[in-house]
């Protein structure tokens, strides 16, 4: 999903008006625009590359199809974000210069998914995000481009991107709604990379994939955004601004030295849905649950290093097919469930997370499965258990969101329900038991089982207003984990919901809340205010514009060079620096440059300074389009 912050403080027309000048200046200044893009040389922040040639002349004002009509394409985008809407209008403007008429169609994200992304073969009701053959499975409505969507680039576990880029015919390609068929097989390379123990081999395989994606242009990779985290300057101990910023939020405090005291209030824009981990699939619910439950372990640093929390350590077998986790001693459940042991984990994973009929309504039911097969889970000691991978090794297992941040529930809490499930005669009855656990058990609803397992204890949850947690004096991690001292340092931790952005920002300016996300359009103003500290952190999501290569898209989009030509016409630097106010960087493939698996020499930068011009785009299209298309 798109991660730009939207907002309504700056007129879209104003931006476009500015782009009219900025765009021209940008093109003139970047000097490139030759008809074929060049591999980047990496000698400047936009890739540098070969010395640019003169901008080719345009071939005409209008791209005409074999019937003599101007080519008209449909660009759907999700509404609600000013940045997305402005980007869509800018793309329309640039493609208009190429000679292609673009019809913009804005609609809500859910509706966009239903009508344009989900597809199914004719006669089938089971719509998914890859219904198989791109000739047979199409969306309800025809489309050509799509905006307002972003894909996680998984910079630490890039094999996870196989769901986006594997061939449309593969089951593993669960999100290939645009009907992409790679020019070279991608999925085997990702699979081999995830199983290889040799870092050089992995780098070669991963970077090759990123090179293929940059050349194939299944989507137009647009930008990598940054996250803007605002804090009042009385908050100390913020930590390093890495991708895992906040992994050690327990160590934050007020003032100059770490001591216990004060109420910390974080402002957020959306309410939480649940405090029940099994049914939490949104960041807001997780943020509240995490205050009371640390989870198995976290990742930190620039490369996602393991930092034990409940799990003190792990061991991997030689071929990376089994991982043994050891729990800390002294982890205590609340509500009288005793010590957390490996038995709790094994029972929970087997009978809840891997339950065949998903009686508990797990919203992430595939977590403990590998390619559809359940992972083996065995207790190896009172505090240790082993997870085995049924379909081969995975060196990135630790950094995947399987055990990373995983929660557990006490066996004593789950068992009575699960025993009833085993006795239930129908699926409806099993579901009813699962719903009873989720909706009526007070220990679940109020996190009563959390014991000493998190830095804070549940106090109250005013659904549309505030979640309040108080300091957990028995917190297991105090003076135990890493070099943490007597954590946590706040007496009370609140998460306050604001439905209206301007109210949230006003509360932050007035000092009524201590932290909140900063919208792009207010970054400059707020970062210069006294008493406010804005921390920029990288975002793993890539904003992109898929090209519909299914049967209800423009048939020419199935050609690699046509997609390249269109991407060439859209200068990403303008989108990053002007529309995103310099708070994003151009993206040319599905991996950020800070990733250790990114190899600049393999990435082709369509839409970058060396491969961006209208004339160049027209020549690429002219060369690639079927007979009968012409520029007039």
């Amino acid at each position, binding site marked *: 999903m798109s991660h730009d912050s939207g907002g309504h403080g700056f007129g879209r027309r104003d931006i476009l008006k500015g782009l009219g000048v900025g765009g021209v200046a940008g093109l003139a200044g970047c000097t490139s625009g030759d008809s074929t893009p060049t591999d980047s040389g990496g000698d400047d922040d936009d890739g540098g590359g070969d010395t640019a040639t003169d901008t080719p002349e345009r071939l005409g004002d209008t791209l005409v199809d074999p019937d003599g009509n101007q080519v008209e394409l449909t660009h759907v985008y999700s509404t609600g974000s000013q940045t997305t809407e402005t980007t869509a209008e800018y793309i329309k403007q640039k493609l208009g210069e190429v000679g292609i008429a673009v019809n913009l169609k804005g609609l809500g994200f*859910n509706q966009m998914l239903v*009508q344009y992304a989900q597809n199914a073969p004719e006669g089938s009701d089971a719509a998914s995000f890859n219904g198989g053959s791109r000739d047979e499975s199409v969306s309800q409505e025809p489309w050509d481009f799509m905006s307002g969507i972003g894909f996680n680039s998984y910079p630490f576990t890039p094999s996870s991107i196989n769901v986006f880029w594997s061939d449309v015919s593969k089951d593993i390609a669960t999100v290939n709604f645009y009907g992409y068929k790679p020019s070279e097989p991608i999925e085997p390379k990702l699979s081999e990379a995830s199983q290889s123990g040799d870092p050089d081999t992995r780098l070669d395989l991963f970077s090759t994939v990123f090179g293929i994606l940059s050349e194939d242009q299944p989507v137009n990779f647009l930008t990598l955004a940054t996250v803007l985290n605002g804090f009042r300057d009385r908050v100390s101990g913020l930590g390093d601004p890495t991708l895992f910023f906040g992994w050690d939020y327990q160590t934050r405090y007020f003032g100059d030295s770490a001591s216990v005291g004060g109420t910390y209030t974080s402002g957020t824009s959306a309410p939480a849905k649940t405090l029940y981990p099994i049914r939490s699939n949104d960041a807001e619910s997780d943020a509240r649950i995490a205050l009371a439950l640390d989870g198995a372990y976290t990742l930190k640093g620039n490369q996602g290093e393991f930092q034990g929390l409940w799990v003190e350590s792990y061991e991997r077998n030689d071929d990376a097919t089994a991982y043994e986790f050891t729990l800390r001693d002294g982890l205590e459940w609340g509500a009288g469930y005793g010590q957390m042991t490996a038995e709790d984990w094994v029972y929970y994973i087997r009978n809840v997370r891997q339950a065949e009929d998903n009686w508990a309504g797990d919203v992430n039911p595939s977590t403990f499965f590998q390619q559809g097969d359940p992972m083996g889970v065995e207790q190896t000691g009172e505090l240790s258990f082993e997870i085995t991978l049924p379909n081969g090794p995975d060196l990135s297992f630790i950094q995947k969101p399987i055990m990373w941040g995983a929660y557990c529930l006490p066996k004593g809490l789950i068992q009575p329900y699960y025993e009833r499930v085993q006795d239930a005669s129908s699926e409806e009855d099993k579901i009813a038991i699962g719903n009873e656990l989720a909706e009526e058990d007070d220990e679940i609803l109020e996190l009563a089982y959390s014991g000493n397992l998190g830095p804070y204890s549940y106090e109250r949850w005013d659904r549309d207003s505030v979640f309040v947690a108080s300091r957990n004096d028995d917190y297991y991690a105090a003076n135990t984990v890493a070099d943490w001292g007597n954590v946590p340092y706040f007496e009370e931790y609140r998460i306050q919901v604001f439905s209206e952005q301007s109210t949230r920002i006003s509360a932050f300016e*007035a000092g009524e809340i201590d932290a909140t996300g900063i919208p792009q359009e207010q970054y400059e103003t707020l970062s210069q205010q006294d008493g406010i500290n804005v921390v920029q952190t990288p975002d793993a999501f890539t904003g992109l514009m898929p090209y519909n290569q299914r049967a209800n898209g423009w048939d020419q989009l199935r050609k690699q060079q046509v997609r390249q030509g269109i991407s060439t016409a859209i200068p990403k630097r303008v989108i990053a620096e002007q529309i995103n106010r310099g708070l994003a960087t151009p993206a040319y493939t599905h991996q950020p440059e800070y990733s250790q698996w990114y190899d600049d020499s393999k990435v082709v930068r369509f839409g970058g300074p060396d491969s961006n011009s209208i004339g160049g785009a027209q020549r690429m299209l002219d060369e690639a389009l079927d007979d009968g298309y012409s520029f007039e």
Partner: protein
Amino acid sequence: MSMRWYVARRLGWTAFATFVILSFYFALIQLAPGGGQASFQFSVATSGGSAEEAAETYKQIRGLTGPLHERYLDYMVNMATGDWGWSQTRNQEVITAISQAYPYSLQYALPATLFSILFGTAVGLYSATHRYTMTDYTGTFISFFGISIPNFWFGIMLILILAVQAPEVTLFGVKLLPLPVYYQTEAVLNHGWVSWENARQLIMPVIVLSTAQIAGQMRYSRATAMEYVNAEFVKTARAKGASDWRVLLRHIFRPALIPLMTIFIAEILGLFFAGAYLVEVIFQIPGLAKLSYDALISQDTPLFMGTSLIPILLLLLGNLLQDISYTVLDPRIDYGDR
């Protein structure tokens, strides 16, 4: 026709209209594209899970399994018996959500409504009897200001001026400003509903809401009273030496009260579903209107149905009460032909 038969007929009509509206709502929700299901499926698919299985899970936890007619029957029975379902976005019963939200709305809607009824009506009547004076112009200005200024903008401006930018202001030894930017529920928990700490965070919401309400009330009262200012019976009263207050209250206000009842009853009934969407969203008051707004935004069907049903029932009930009140207030109105 007796009045009892008339009321019975109206009640029957109200029940029928409620049935139709509930069925209409049910159909609308069934036809609504996607709901939150698509984004849930997308989230699962991006993690490598099956979108089809995710759809099943979504229906399972939202109670959307089973044939349509069974779900419709369950829905109608539940609505009739007060079991209005489970809010998945809040993980609590709809009735509980509504009952928790209601006091938060009432605490600002009650003073705003009473103030606007009393002040708006009084100024409207006064303006009608003192046309084209400075007082009339001032009242007209206030009413046009209230009608013209968007609540949304007005609320944000008040926050910026009174809560963010304003220095602290003390009036008669009481620290008034800056006011809190947003509504904080702990004021009620720590100090109670009736406390200065709670009241001061309602000042801006009441100002915003009552400004708009006063405007309508004032203009309506003024226009209604104008019909009677030069009526024969008013002139007669004046000729008989009745005081200005007596003329105003006994000879102008009383006949004007009949059309004014329409707006009075609507506003008083409105207190049972109190809340103004924009006011609650801007000031972050966790009341009924915000509950309904969030339910709509997050496509929480049971909650949205619950919060929508209340105003519908109140609307139907309000129409009934208005018709009956006319017959009580003015004996010349006969319900026999209705």
